[in-house]
């Protein structure tokens, strides 16, 4: 929210636009609101569920078990030097985070329609707040990964210091997509219906259950256009020391920046009509 300086400055609202501070400025300004909205999500998510926290751990465990059965035992997928369950869980951590944020975040404005039409608040706080709650799930999954890594004797590496870089990449891709999708969803509710199948396809196009490396030439470049390729690889490299292709990570970073810049532009322009059409 605008702070002390607004006591003397005029704040303008006109057709051509009101005073906007850009993505980072607005995010910083509304950091407390983002925090409260995220806290609310976290609190209500498992409020009525008797087993609450257990579900958070059950989901990645179940997925890894299925992946191991299907891809490792039946499909003989090559996971390099890593034991397959460790390999799969290290990929799943990135994937679960991004797919969760994108699915939830794209709905956030519509779900909070009564807020949008009745209160002024920096709209970007709503999609931004969806970045935080799944970090809790991620922490649990990381704990499981640690247990698995110890059990299979996978040693930690110095790469772990780069966890923040990996998180930044994850959050940028997730937020960039959320900005686009949540703003479009205000006008066209198709997003909700289209997203389910698209996320499924996206999962198959991402190296979660298998390794993405080994594609050469144009095919490799084209594959790396999916920003999840570089992101998941970076996650595996950071967490369990899997090999890394620098090109994939660079591509992911570039696409993340493009998504963020275009997404926030679009969002900040579209937000002026959110209250009218939502």
């Amino acid at each position, binding site marked *: 929210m605008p702070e002390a300086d607004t006591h003397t400055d005029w704040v303008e*609202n006109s057709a051509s636009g*009101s005073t906007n501070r850009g993505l980072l400025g607005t995010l910083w300004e509304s950091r*407390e609101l983002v925090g409260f909205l995220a806290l609310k999500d976290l609190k*209500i998510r498992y409020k009525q569920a008797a087993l609450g926290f257990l579900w958070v751990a059950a989901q990645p465990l179940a997925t890894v078990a299925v992946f191991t059965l299907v891809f490792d035992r039946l499909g003989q997928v090559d996971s390099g030097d890593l034991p397959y369950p460790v390999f799969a869980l290290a990929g799943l951590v990135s994937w679960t985070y991004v797919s969760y944020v994108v699915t939830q975040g794209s709905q956030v404005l519509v779900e909070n329609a009564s807020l949008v*039409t009745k*209160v*002024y608040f920096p709209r970007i706080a709503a999609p931004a707040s969806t970045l935080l709650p799944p970090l809790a799930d991620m922490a649990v999954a990381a704990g499981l990964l640690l247990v698995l890594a110890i059990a299979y004797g996978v040693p930690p590496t110095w790469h772990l210091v780069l966890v923040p870089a990996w998180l930044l990449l994850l959050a940028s891709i997730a937020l960039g997509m959320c900005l686009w999708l949540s703003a479009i969803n205000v006008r066209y509710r198709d997003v909700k219906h289209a997203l389910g199948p698209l996320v499924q396809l996206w999962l198959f196009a991402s190296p979660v259950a298998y390794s993405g490396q080994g594609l050469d030439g144009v095919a490799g470049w084209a594959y790396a256009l999916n920003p999840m390729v570089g992101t998941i690889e970076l996650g595996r490299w950071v967490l369990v020391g899997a090999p890394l292709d620098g090109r994939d990570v660079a591509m992911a970073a570039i696409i993340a920046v493009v998504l963020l810049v275009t997404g926030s532009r679009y969002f900040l322009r579209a937000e002026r*009509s959110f209250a009218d059409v939502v």
Partner: protein
Amino acid sequence: MDRIQVEHVSKRYVLGERSNTAGELVTSALRRLTTRRARSPQRELWSLRDVTFRVSEGESLGIVGRNGAGKSTILKILTRITSPTDGVARTRGRVAALLEVGTGFHPELTGRENVYLNGAILGMTRRDIARRFDSIVEFAGTERFLDTPVKRYSSGMYLRLAFAVAAHLEPDILVVDEILAVGDAEFQRKCLGRMEEAGREGRTIVYVSHDLDSLRSVCSRAMWLEAGRVRDEGATAEVVREYLRSGLSSADSGTSLLQAGPLTVTSVEAGPAHAPGTSVVMQEDVTRVTVCFTLQERIPGLDLAINLTSSKGVRVLDQALSDSEHRQLEAGDYAMSLEIPPVLNVDTYAVGVWFGTSHVDLIDEPAVTSFTLHGSDRGRPGRVLVTDFPLSVERV
């Protein structure tokens, strides 16, 4: 020194053409291509047209107008919830808006959690909220339930807590839409008291209400909006008098058709009994409410009633046919009318109709139309009845 400057503000809403799915978008684009017309004008609605006004520091402005006049729209523009299609609105200082009580409250969260969340949504920092927390809770009077999810609150408690948060915003500009229509009389008095206090503290207030009494007590100046334009502006008493005299605010005399099975209500009208066809009712007049309906076939045990609700939400009367006679209505056209002697105080009353049997409600519509009793409340605004009962004092 001005706190609010609104200059030539217009707001256009596009109706109908809201394509909500890509499919609709494609068909409407095709239609537009084939009919060679961009946007048909009747699909637009100008909610505001060239509205200009200023409010200076410490001043309180009231806004009156009929439903759909654009009152809420102007508040949404002042608070930047929506932007004008044309013109510019400027505000200076912290703006707090109460367009609805309890926006952003989440039923699963406790009272305490909701206070923090709601405060943050309304623009308070965590420090602000923590500092005012005790005072908020005291104002709401819900100390004992702080750690109970608000879904277990009574609606009154919910309302109190929600208003309490908003009342502690301490803004430079306070914008209030008709939120007080809900809640009991005591709560309303408390809220109004809080607003008057805010005014005395030098805050700027913009207040929209159909409750003209509260408007008079809070606002020194008033603006009358009609169909998106400023029709009149000036001292509250003057504007309110003009607004009432226009008669437009009274007796919407609408023929809202209600239907349930073989039963059709064709009109509901309210007006003075001595001058049928007119709609201005003075407090001293007998008011006649007439409900016309058609019964296509006999409904066994059909009963019907007319009820009145005051602007504060009090059910003032509820008179059923079965109160006076037991009669089985056969198929046919009917006009039922109720004459109300001049006992009610000046106020706007919603006229409701009810049709049903002892088992089932067929039609239960609490506000089909409304009428306003004009005149003076003779200095006692709170009372429902204007009575002349014998009151005597004797030395004993």
